[in-house]
């Protein structure tokens, strides 16, 4: 049962074949068996989850009509606050903190009857591409335990790819949902900026952060997307418009006549041959289904990584000022308030977080502001323009999600620039505020590890991602003969 999709689990719950309590228990058993190796979770809320599951079962027994994901277990990235449940954001500075309120995403999950199993590991404050920057422990890729599960949401991607949960929530500032999905052979979506409320999402870079679904199938991701999305007056950047019909699009899965633009700049040098091969194969599949493949050029993307590593640190240096040792979280040292702040932030933040705060403080300081932060904002305009031009000749744009498959734990941890290059294909989407999905494109020939295929669509056209993703998924599944995750080694 735990290897089924959330959609199939939902049918099994509706037909009485299983109960939410049984399903939830089975997932905790799985976690007990494999999480010692995978280490996807930072905290398990066993009592809370079992209680919620029993309540859903009772409601179902009474004949109440329940939402499609009611009773389905989910793993929640530890960047989202959940009332009364420890929330650390992967940082020592928040260790032991229990938030007094629910994030809107969490509220929506509860409203939909989703069972939250626990909080997943992540790079500290979502800064990283490997989950090695977690202050607590690294997470291991179920495909090869010596490799990274992607980041920053490596706990969420590892949890679903090791069948510890059928669904997870991630957040994506520069690729933190999509790159983990790519390297674990799962599906991840960064919705349009403003499509999902950021209330209760601990801010890293407010103009880029966006929560979204992680799942093993495109339809499951769509069901989760609809459960969490929508306007929220608690987030002033939340878009006041109807949620795109993503479930309907995932069921349609028809790309006939659709124009698919291949971004010239997001391939070639720096991309692993096996990843490119799988990318080309997916393009051929879409073409055979009747899609029209065109090439588009986005010349300013060459500057996207540089702009991102100025904008995100700048915003983070301001956002993380709230960790001041006064109202919640860690407090270290004695003396004046300032001395306590200095000592707490030294003890509470890890290396990458400090590096980015200092970099952002520098980029925003007078004398450097125009050359760094100001220029980066102009590059952001150029990137938006490149996307607009490209979407004039294509309905969706595509690229490999990440340039390589999962690398070894420790391989890049001492080389920040090499680490940043992982996000080269995912970052432009965040800078422009549009939406994108990563779906598995198969295994790269060199290392038999999963590669990801990225589809990008204009703002609030999230439904196109699911339409294309589901069509490609169906064809590749037929080709492989079984789901990609069935090729992964057995963990227990």
């Amino acid at each position, binding site marked *: 049962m735990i290897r089924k999709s959330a959609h199939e689990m939902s049918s099994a719950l509706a037909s009485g074949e299983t109960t939410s309590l049984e399903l939830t228990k089975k997932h905790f058993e799985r976690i007990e068996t494999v999480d010692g190796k995978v280490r996807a979770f930072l905290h398990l809320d066993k009592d809370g989850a079992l209680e919620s599951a029993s309540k859903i079962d009772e409601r179902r027994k009474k004949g109440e009509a329940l939402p499609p994901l009611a009773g389905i277990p989910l793993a929640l990235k530890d960047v989202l606050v959940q009332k009364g449940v420890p929330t650390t954001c992967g940082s020592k500075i928040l260790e032991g903190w229990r938030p007094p309120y629910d994030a809107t995403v969490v509220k929506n999950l509860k409203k939909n009857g989703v069972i939250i199993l626990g909080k997943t590991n992540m790079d500290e404050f979502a800064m990283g591409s490997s989950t090695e920057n977690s202050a607590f422990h690294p997470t291991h890729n179920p495909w090869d335990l010596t490799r990274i599960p992607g980041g920053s949401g490596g706990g969420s991607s590892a949890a679903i790819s090791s069948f510890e949960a059928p669904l997870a929530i991630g957040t994506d500032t520069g690729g933190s949902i999509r790159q983990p999905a790519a390297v674990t052979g799962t599906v991840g979506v960064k919705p349009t900026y403003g499509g999902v409320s950021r209330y209760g999402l601990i801010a890293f870079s407010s103009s880029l952060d966006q929560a979204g679904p992680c799942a093993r199938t495109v339809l499951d991701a769509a069901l989760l997307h609809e459960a969490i999305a929508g306007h929220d007056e608690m987030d002033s950047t939340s878009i006041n418009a109807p949620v795109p019909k993503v479930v309907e699009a995932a069921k349609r899965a028809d790309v006939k006549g659709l124009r698919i633009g291949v971004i010239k700049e997001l391939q070639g040098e720096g991309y692993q041959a096996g990843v490119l091969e799988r990318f080309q194969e997916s393009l051929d599949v879409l073409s055979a289904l009747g899609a029209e493949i065109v090439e588009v050029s986005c010349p300013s993307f060459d500057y996207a990584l540089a702009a991102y590593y100025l904008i995100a640190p700048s915003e983070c240096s301001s956002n993380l000022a709230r960790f001041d040792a006064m109202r919640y979280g860690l407090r270290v040292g004695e003396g004046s308030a300032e001395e306590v702040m200095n000592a707490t*932030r030294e003890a509470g933040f890890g290396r990458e977080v400090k590096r980015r705060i200092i970099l952002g403080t520098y980029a925003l300081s007078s004398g450097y502001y125009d050359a760094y932060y100001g220029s980066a904002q102009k590059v952001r305009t150029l990137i938006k323009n490149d996307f607009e031009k490209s979407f004039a000749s294509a309905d969706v744009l595509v690229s490999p999600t990440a340039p390589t498959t999962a690398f070894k734990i420790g391989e890049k941890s001492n080389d920040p620039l090499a680490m940043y290059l992982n996000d080269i294909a995912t970052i432009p989407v965040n800078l422009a505020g549009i939406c994108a999905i990563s779906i598995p494109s198969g295994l790269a020939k060199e290392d038999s590890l999963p590669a990801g295929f990225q589809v990008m669509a204009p703002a609030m056209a999230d439904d196109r991602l699911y339409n294309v993703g589901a069509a490609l998924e169906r064809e590749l599944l037929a080709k492989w003969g079984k789901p990609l995750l069935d090729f992964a080694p057995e963990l227990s």
Partner: protein
Amino acid sequence: MSDKPSISREEVANLARLARIDMSESELDHLSSELDVILSAVARVSEVAGDDIPPTSHPLPLLNVFREDVVKASLTAEEALSGAPAKEDGRFKVPQILGEEA
């Protein structure tokens, strides 16, 4: 990479002070050399940032977003204080903020 920006150790120490993070001598050494490499890589944004290009600070063209000012239930004082490192008489207890009066 010939004209790379060089960031001095003293500059990093000043930034750390502004960001309210204590840093050890070795941390300062390490970070200043790392920042040098990162800044050289990101400085290229200025190559294409012409005067005629407007900056984008945010993906959405929003100005002010207003809602009705309606009184609603919010956190109780007890809830707001629940994560405080120290509290007293229903308030946050913080270290001394102002210096001694002369």
